[in-house]
């Protein structure tokens, strides 16, 4: 299982520990094209001495930045592939014929086998949504023609806004700006973790998703470990154990809990 983990590198200095634990695929957020992640310049990413390097582009990209991206994409020597959110990236890479592995990562959209199959005719892999049940997820994994990626561990992204919500809040109340915060709904007492950069605001789930118990035997391309906002020690404990049990502050998300969308049949 450890050999199939794709880990998000939230700090370069942690890479050696990940490697020692057996991880061999690494994801780096590229400056200017990510929200909700610590990011790096292309030069910094290139200097990292590991073989399976992927870059993450998880923004919904405007016209100006899709233009700039075309230049960036010509400089990706040493990069194995791109993990991306905006379909414009697919269009650009297709035309440029760069020979890069393409993995579509639209957080909440890959929820049925036909849509996933549609994309697998065009890209190398697809991240499945983490808001579907284990039954739904397994059905997709078992029925599509290529191996997909699934979330294994980490906080889930639950919201992405182009607005600078923490900046606006700090200006309105004249309180010091802090790019990470935790908010809590008074009614439900649910908490969300808020991150912001100049491209927008992302909220993460209250609990860490841990899908080892359910997902360990799936035939996937990658198990994704999102290290953002999690202590390095906790990540290492997870990587070195990979066991079925949940620690405090962890849950299994929607694997056993189907969401509803009609309050009642009319």
């Amino acid at each position, binding site marked *: 299982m450890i050999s199939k983990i794709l880990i998000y590198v939230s700090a370069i200095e942690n890479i050696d520990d990940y490697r020692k634990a057996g991880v061999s695929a690494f994801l780096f957020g590229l400056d200017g094209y990510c929200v909700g992640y610590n990011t790096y310049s292309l030069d910094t990413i290139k200097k990292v001495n590991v073989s399976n390097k992927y870059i993450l582009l998880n923004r*919904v*990209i*405007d*016209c*100006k*930045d*899709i233009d700039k991206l075309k230049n960036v994409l010509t400089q990706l020597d040493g990069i194995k592939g791109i993990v991306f959110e*905006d*379909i*414009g*990236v*697919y*269009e*650009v890479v297709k035309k440029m014929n760069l020979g890069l592995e393409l993995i579509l990562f639209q*957080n*909440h*959209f890959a*929820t*049925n086998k*036909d*849509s996933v199959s*549609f994309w697998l005719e065009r890209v190398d892999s697809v991240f499945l949504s983490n*808001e*579907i049940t284990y039954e*739904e997820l397994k*059905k*997709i994994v078992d029925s599509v023609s290529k191996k997909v990626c699934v979330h294994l561990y980490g906080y*889930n992204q*639950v*919201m*992405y*806004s*182009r*607005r*600078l*919500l923490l*900046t*606006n*809040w700090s*200006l*309105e*109340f004249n*309180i010091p700006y802090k790019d990470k*915060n*935790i*908010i*809590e*709904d*008074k009614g*439900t007492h*649910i908490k*969300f973790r808020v991150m912001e950069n100049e491209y927008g605001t992302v*909220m993460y*789930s*209250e609990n860490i998703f841990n899908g080892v118990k359910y997902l360990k035997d799936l035939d996937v391309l990658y198990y994704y470990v999102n290290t953002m906002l999690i202590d390095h020690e906790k990540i290492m404990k997870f990587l070195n154990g990979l066991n079925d049990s949940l620690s405090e502050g962890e849950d299994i998300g929607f694997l056993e809990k189907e*969401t*509803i*969308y*009609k309050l009642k049949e*009319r």
Partner: protein
Amino acid sequence: MQERIELLSPAGDLERLKIACLYGADAIYIGGQNYSLRANALNFSLDDIKEAVLFAHNLNKRVYVTVNIVFHDKDLAGVKEYLKNLDSIGVDAIIVSDVVIMDLWRKMKLKMELHVSTQASALNYEVVNFYKELGATRVVLAREATKDDIIRIKKETGLELECFVHGAMCTSISGRCVLSNYATNRDSNRGGCAQVCRFVFDALNTDKVFSMTPKDLNMVSDIAEMIKIGVNSFKVEGRMRSVYYIATVIDVYRHLIDMVVNNKLDIAYTNYYLSILNRCANRDSTSQFFNGLPGRNEQYFLGRDEVSNKDFLGIVLDYDKENKIVTLEQRNYFKVGDVVEFFGPKHEVFEFVIPADIRNKDDEIIEVANHPRMIVKFKIDRELEQFDMMRIKVFDISQFL
């Protein structure tokens, strides 16, 4: 060839669709009882859709049906049959976000057009070209698109572009929010959004509450610019809004678009229409992303002071031309002597004073109309029609000249 300029209205049911058509919408978007993002609205059965299409086509208007949920496998049962039915009925387009439906539309060779929903969050020309290659004739751009983005996308794709011009905004990029799933177990991308972004949150290490509710979108001041840069369809949000809201908003944007096209829009009318819309919605509104990134002034922080609007006084059910008697259904309190105004699809707004002789459905003289939906009759010389509306007179164009 003249590009299409279309005013696109929402409708949550047949009555609202008729109101939207009559008040000047060129096209109406509706949701069926399945596969649509307003899962808890009444929505349209297939029979309703048939009637809607017939009604709209008779007036030379178009009907679009949203099939815009993000599908789970089990939701796909029956969807092919549904699409076939929509096509047979003569629906003009489906509005779609999931590629599974785009693929089906293509494979089934359906006649109706394919429009890509704002849920797909198209913000650059490359993604719009992707959908164009799939066969889409129109893309509803992400609400985050700026003027510069729209200009560039139009230039690089030549595709019909649809943009929101009025109504509520999501805090997040459309489709990129599952706050509802986590807070309430309701699936926001399948129509169960519980509007968690409207909640007021506590924040760690401070006594200042955290709120992220955006103000509404209102493009009255930029409508001329939007037409100039090539936006084809001007979309009003709100399939769950009232008949009065739809009539008012569609009436205003109809006038605005026509005035721009005929080069007659000036600052006085712009301000007049802005005032009417702001009062109707009872919320603050801004142009949001069109002119740049919205900041603290484009959102609420301590909740909204949203008082229920009592301006809508009644809707005309009938007008007796011979005796010049109007019959209307009351919607809010009014009384003898009140200064009101009528507006409707076939005449300009005019002022009227409620006469001394007003009667209820039993022909008894009354002084006040104070029962919800009571039938009220009185004499009025100006001819009215079914679906004309009576509201409190607040603004007059002379105030803005």
